[in-house]
């Protein structure tokens, strides 16, 4: 079910270490050792994070090479982007109205004060 996959995606993205790993992978594939470097973390701990990312479909690990490089998979991120953009227009348009409304309210206050 696609919604389940999206929940997995959010669970995977909720962790700052995993987000940093994804950011690193934007620049190209990398081995577990390379990915572990910037963090003070053991290789098994990093592997655990990679498993979560793999389950969420956010990365792919090659079975070919001995060092099994990790590669970014962008499709689930596109799903996330899509709902975020939908909400962006909801809020932006609401806030345009709020801005006008606040202006109106203060104008009314002013004229009330003059009476």
């Amino acid at each position, binding site marked *: 079910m*696609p*919604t389940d996959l*999206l*929940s*997995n*995606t*959010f*669970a995977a*993205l*909720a962790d700052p270490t995993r*987000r940093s790993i*994804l950011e690193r992978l934007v620049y190209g594939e990398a081995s577990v050792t390379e990915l572990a470097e910037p963090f003070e973390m053991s290789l098994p701990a990093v592997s655990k994070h990679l498993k979560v990312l793999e389950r969420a479909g956010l990365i792919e690990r090659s079975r070919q090479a001995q060092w099994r490089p990790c590669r970014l998979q962008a499709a689930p*991120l596109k*799903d*996330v*982007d*899509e*709902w*975020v953009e*939908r*909400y*962006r*227009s*909801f*809020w*932006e*348009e*609401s*806030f*345009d*109205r*709020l*801005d*006008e*409304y*606040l*202006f109106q*309210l*203060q104008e009314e206050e002013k004229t009330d004060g003059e009476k």
Partner: protein
Amino acid sequence: MEKSRPMTKPAEGELVITRIFDAPRELVWKAWTDPEHLMRWWGPKVFTCPHCEIDLRVGGKFLNCMRSSEGQDIWSTGVYREIVPMERIVCTDSFADEKGNVVPATHYGMPDNIPLEMQVTVTFEDLDGKTRMTLRHEGLPAGEMSDSAQQGWSESFDKLAEYLAKA
């Protein structure tokens, strides 16, 4: 008015909008927390807001309705998780039916990639009589979902089961 600009780069799956309103913080706070005020601006420009309930306390709920120009009603609800008067509101946010039960976005014909439960954080800062408002809207991972959202899940599964039994 200054246009929205994100203060920090938001993480994936998270929306951050900042606006500066030429109005005192007290008034902006009121516009968010008093139903009479909120109904005047809630929703995109082609929408109206015919119904708004706000129970402003931690654990209290809101229930809003917005109506499209074609007359379609879209309800949303959420639970307040944190309230600091004039400073900060944190609440959950979900689509709902008119009774306030959580429903998936597909209930309104929207795509199923919208999370069932999201979290909205609004902060208000005083800038010499103007107000900087920052909104953060993020999806909640399944493990952090509230009971009502879980309920919504199971109800949509019930419907699916019903449908499959008939098919």
